């Protein structure tokens, strides 16, 4: 059985929701303060950043490609926005400048992959390094601390006890869900990921679809970076590093396989919640982030095994039905 076939089994949304429930139940029993309102809100705050960046990653993976540069784009946009704020530039303008810098990364990715037909691994991997390096250079490697409370409201504030960050993330998620299921652009992403030649033969400008998707991915990553800065109240030039791993994991757990053209952003949102919950719970149990990566890896494999077994069982039943 090929990897693609195994990944194919990842698709079942309901199973993933059970997974989330099981994880919550597990930590609810094992970690003392896990099932408190405070902590739940904490998880949602954590998840909001991951959801936003994962949405872009999912679009890139739906395209049959990947965007390795999202993590360092988060860092870069975060520090650029931070520097602007410290220079006294207004919040909306600072955010716009940050996002503009982020969109340059997406522009390079999209142009080289979409129009120049470069390999997407090489391009986004290189940009991962370039964006990271830029973030370190412009900050001299130092963290930019402390921002106005009005800026911090984005990632850390609350409206009637609900974190603003999660409201923003949900609004963005709804927009992306709508985009991917109800617009031509969304449909074209699936078509390009399903089979680029078929898409081209059907009159779709595949280069443009790829170009736009990568810009969107970078914009989402950039905004996630700003949310993160606001949430932790400092702009660290390596804050986003590792987020590409979590974003890919959220996508895979959410049922969008690497071969493109199937799956969707809905699953990714649940996938991101699973990862945020897991990391929070493991922290409470005293397990450090390095160990957490191992566990996330294991969980991806576990889910795949579960789904393969499930599919085998179904195939058996289907086979018997055919015979009857």
């Amino acid at each position, binding site marked *: 059985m090929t990897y693609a076939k195994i990944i194919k089994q990842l698709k079942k949304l309901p199973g993933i929701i059970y997974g989330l429930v099981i994880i919550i139940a597990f930590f609810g029993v094992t970690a003392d303060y896990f099932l408190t309102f405070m902590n739940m809100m904490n998880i949602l705050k954590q998840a909001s950043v991951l959801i936003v960046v994962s949405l872009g990653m999912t679009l890139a993976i739906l395209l049959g490609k990947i965007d390795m540069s999202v993590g360092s784009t988060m860092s870069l946009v975060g520090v650029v926005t931070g520097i602007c704020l410290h220079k006294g530039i207004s919040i909306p303008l600072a955010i716009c400048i940050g996002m503009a810098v982020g969109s340059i990364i997406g522009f390079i990715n999209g142009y080289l992959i979409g129009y120049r037909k470069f390999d997407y691994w090489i391009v986004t991997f290189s940009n991962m390094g370039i964006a990271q390096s830029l973030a370190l250079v412009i900050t001299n490697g130092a963290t930019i601390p402390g921002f106005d409370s009005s800026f911090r409201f984005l990632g850390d504030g609350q409206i009637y006890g609900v974190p603003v960050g999660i409201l923003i993330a949900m609004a963005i998620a709804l927009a992306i869900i*709508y985009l991917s299921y*109800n*617009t*031509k652009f969304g*449909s*074209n992403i*699936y*078509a390009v990921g*399903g*089979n680029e*030649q*078929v*898409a*081209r*033969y*059907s*009159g*779709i400008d595949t280069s443009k679809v790829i170009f736009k998707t990568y810009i969107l991915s970078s914009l989402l990553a950039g905004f996630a970076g700003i949310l993160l800065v606001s949430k932790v109240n400092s702009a660290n030039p390596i804050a986003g590093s590792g987020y590409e791993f979590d974003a890919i994991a959220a996508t895979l757990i959410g049922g969008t396989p690497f071969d493109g*053209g*199937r799956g969707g952003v809905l699953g990714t949102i649940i996938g991101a919640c699973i990862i945020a919950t897991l990391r929070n719970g493991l922290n409470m149990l005293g397990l450090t982030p390095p160990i957490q990566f191992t566990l996330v890896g294991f969980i991806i494999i576990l889910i795949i095994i579960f789904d393969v077994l499930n599919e085998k069982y179904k195939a058996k039943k*289907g*086979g*018997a039905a*055919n*015979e009857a």
Partner: protein
Amino acid sequence: MSDQIILQLKGISKQFPGVKALDNVSLDVRKGEVHVLLGENGAGKSTLMKILSGVYKKDSGKIFLDGKEVEINSVNDAENLGIGIIHQEFNLLPHRDIAQNIFLGKEPTKRGPLGVKVLDKATMYSKCNELLKTVGIDLDSRILVKDLGIAQKQMVEIAKALSLANLKILIMDEPTATLTKGEIDKLFSIIRKYKSMGISIIYISHRMEEIQVIGDRVTVLRDGKYIGTVPVKETPPSELIRMMVGREITNLYKRDYNEPGPEALKVCNLSSRGKFKDVNFSVRRGEIVGFYGLVGAGRTEVAKAIFGEDKYDAGEILINGKKVKHHMPSQAVQNKMGLLPEDRRDEGLITKMLLKQNVVQASLRKVFPKGILNNKVESQIATKYITKLNIATPDENVVVASLSGGNQQKVVLAKWLLTDSEVLIFDEPTRGIDVGAKAEIYELMNDLAKSGKAIMMISSDLPEVIGLSDRIYVMYQGKIVAEFSHENASQERIVNFAIGRGDTL
């Protein structure tokens, strides 16, 4: 059909790196006719049609539609002019539903929230259901394409082409390659219906019988050049073949029937749930045993089970009288079996690798016992088979993907000859291979049988099955329902068994 010319291609040329694919080719198509485009693989038919449908750009030449010169620079241009195409390979997205595939790239839209353009799904699905009805497919437009059978996929392709609002020209590139007799009849009745509506059809096919049935006029291309246009009714097939290959093929199926040797492969009560049941047959040395049946009758599944690629639930397989059980293909290869799969490009060859690398692929241990490869030895071996099998290639160092279908098949064959395979399974040995190369493959198969190999041949090409086989098994719904010797094989009886009607003549 009228004599009014709707489409004219004049002096079309197209150069690809290394080859002149089209050299000053002209074609005129009348309103409401079925215009057959005939030529061997590589003759330029598909290239010409890809230019007409906007996939490729022509280097020179002119295209006139309804007497006016038109520029076709993209698929959208062609579609706007009413030119639709059904490509040779499936152009469907497996994980999207029928409607999403049919309306791909031209989905109906409406104004959504905030005035943005969004998909009008309600219109899309209702339009799709209507379309499916007119094409005569009884399917829900929300079914995912991956869940459809091959013939159903083909019908969806056709529906996709017919979905163009102002369809004038419909190009069909080998639409029947994967269809069964009944489905072909259905397709032909659709073609006739659209013909009567004044739509012109450009029909690419290798199958002479079909051309006779459905075609009005035939244009023949050879090596990228225009050879001529003739009316179907007044041109015998032998003349068409002569135009195509530049020579006459008098005897396509050449077979020396000899007294076969001992049983090389015997299959007893082989069953696999949901695929096939109680399959019994044998193949003797020196025999070609044909397997005929509809797509999905279980022939390929039986072959894959014997070869160790698929599992089976019950039954026995004997090679040279010895019971064997193959858990994986490598064991079958050790037992001197070879499989020439239906899907050459994905299962028979590693198309990105060189010809010589493919030839030694299954014999690495034998050729290089120390486990260290040697370029020179590979070349020597490959050169030997290039001569022996008459493979048309510049040398042994070409990437297999660049060879034509017939020559690719010969490379697969070379691979198995090098392993000294005694039992060879040919699954659709000549699918997508042009007439000239077909004759060569048949000759090779005849030679192999003469040299004492046991050959199991799965084929949906009835003349091929009858012309080549010592014995013929017919499968229907996973079971062998009839066996014929080559003397008493008749097309009608075989087809009757294959469609489940039994011996009702």
